[in-house]
């Protein structure tokens, strides 16, 4: 059961039950939809980007605890950040849940390190990264839906 607690840390369960920044964002000027065909999860990320800074961010959709909590924590993490900083976080997050990162990067990821346990569950890596891939697509304002496949 200890492994499971590594995956489903309290912070994750909390964000799953009470997701932050969940819902539409009327002032948004960037959107993207993400889809994980493995589990049928779909989510949408809305961004309000002005002068290269993410002023507002929200997400909608249904998914498992990991994907929902990841989206929720992501919105908290990128709000107020520059586009370049958000892209850097995306890169670091992806590294953390696939190959792992050193301590300096861990510090920069802050709260997002609650997802480091995901690495031990290869089938769930896509759940954790779906929202980030969708954010990336929204920043590039690709109008097409992204998929984890």
């Amino acid at each position, binding site marked *: 059961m200890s492994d499971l607690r590594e995956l489903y840390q309290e912070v994750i*369960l909390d964000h799953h039950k009470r997701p932050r920044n969940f819902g539409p964002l009327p002032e948004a000027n960037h959107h993207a939809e993400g889809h994980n065909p493995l589990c049928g999860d779909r989510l949408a990320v809305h961004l309000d980007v002005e002068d290269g800074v993410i002023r507002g961010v929200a997400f909608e959709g249904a998914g498992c605890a990991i994907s929902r909590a990841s989206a929720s924590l992501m919105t908290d993490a990128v709000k107020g950040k520059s586009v370049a900083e958000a892209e850097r976080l995306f890169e670091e997050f992806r590294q953390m849940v696939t190959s792992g990162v050193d301590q300096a990067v861990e510090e920069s990821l802050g709260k997002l390190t609650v997802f480091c346990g995901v690495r031990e569950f290869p089938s769930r890596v896509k759940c954790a990264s779906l929202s980030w891939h969708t954010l990336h697509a929204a920043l590039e304002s690709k109008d097409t839906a992204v998929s984890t496949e």
Partner: protein
Amino acid sequence: MSAVEQVSRSVRRAFDVEAVRRDFPILHQQIHGKPLVYLDNAATAQKPRAVIDAISNYYLSDNANIHRGVHSLSERATAAYEGAREAVRRFLNAAESREIVFVRGTTEAVNLVAHSYAQPALKPDDEIVVSVMEHHSNFVPWKMACEATGARLRVVPITDAGELRMDEYERLLGDRTRLVALGHVSNALGTINSAAEIVRLAHARGIPVLLDGAQAVPHMAVDVRALDCDFYAFSGHKLFGPTGIGVLYGKAALMDRMPPWQGGGDMISSVTLEEVRYNTLPAKFEAGTPDIAGAIGLAAAIEYLNGLDRVAAAAHEAALTRYVEERLSGFPDVTLFGRAPAKAGIVSFVMSSAHPHDIGTVLDQEGVAIRTGHHCCQPLMHRLGVPATARASFAFYNTREDVDRFVDALARVREMFG
């Protein structure tokens, strides 16, 4: 006690699940420190030692390419491969062994019929009848054939209990219907469709029927002549045999007239620079070196099943399914899908507190293997109004203790997410 009761009692006594479990080496292992409970049988079934040994012995002592070999090994391999075809013929009670075509699996069998039977015959506005509960393998090939020809798919709806709407099915059969393609047993709901009735209604209008038997053959005896279906498809790996081998049964009168599927060795009778003459059944549809070891492994699986009391095995599975449904019905946060009175050992469900994916991960930590997702049935998931379900599927080697472990693990899910 009536004679029927006596028979059913003795049958129930005859099925010794502990003895059967000893035949499946893989079941005896620990996952995350707990004994494995394997409830993903609808995805693929485990293999008895007899199957593993048959494949291993073939490679240890008989391996050679089949047909046209004049040396002893080739003759032995050919005899074993053609013997496997005869074993499948008897298993399905087909009239002739040339009606048995070895393919990679159910998917390839359906694609073969879509390519060589449906596509050449379809004209714009012709129709193929499928249902909303089909596996993608019995849906997408027909969709592709329709797109190539301008024909249309007609889709039989289901009831809320997960049964085919037979009234709608009958209504959809019309002058333009060229083929009916339906699952015998639903992989996501467990529903056992009324195959004989499906065939009877179609044949009354001169329409041929393909049955996708992938989920049926592991649970029940199938007699293609009694069903009178025109095509029947199944996969070896769901029948306790190896992956990579499957079967297409087709009535010789239909398959004789169908053009070949893939070109290559073995499917020809003569080749010159000017002309190719095709071989007869079944070689016409078996281009290239087939999965010889797979066919031999499949025959070993059939032989193993023939050695079991399949009526008793089915009764054991039915009792397990009733037991799991009974235990789950006590959980207010669990919704079961597929409540058809006639169903195989498949239990599909969602929990209000947890996504199927999270259920699957927690159960795995408890040593319990189930499947989560859309089960390659996205149209059905839309119909049920869920993105995914969790599915426990049973085989005759599962026990009541497996059910208890599974239900106890669901309690852990509730503890965590509830």
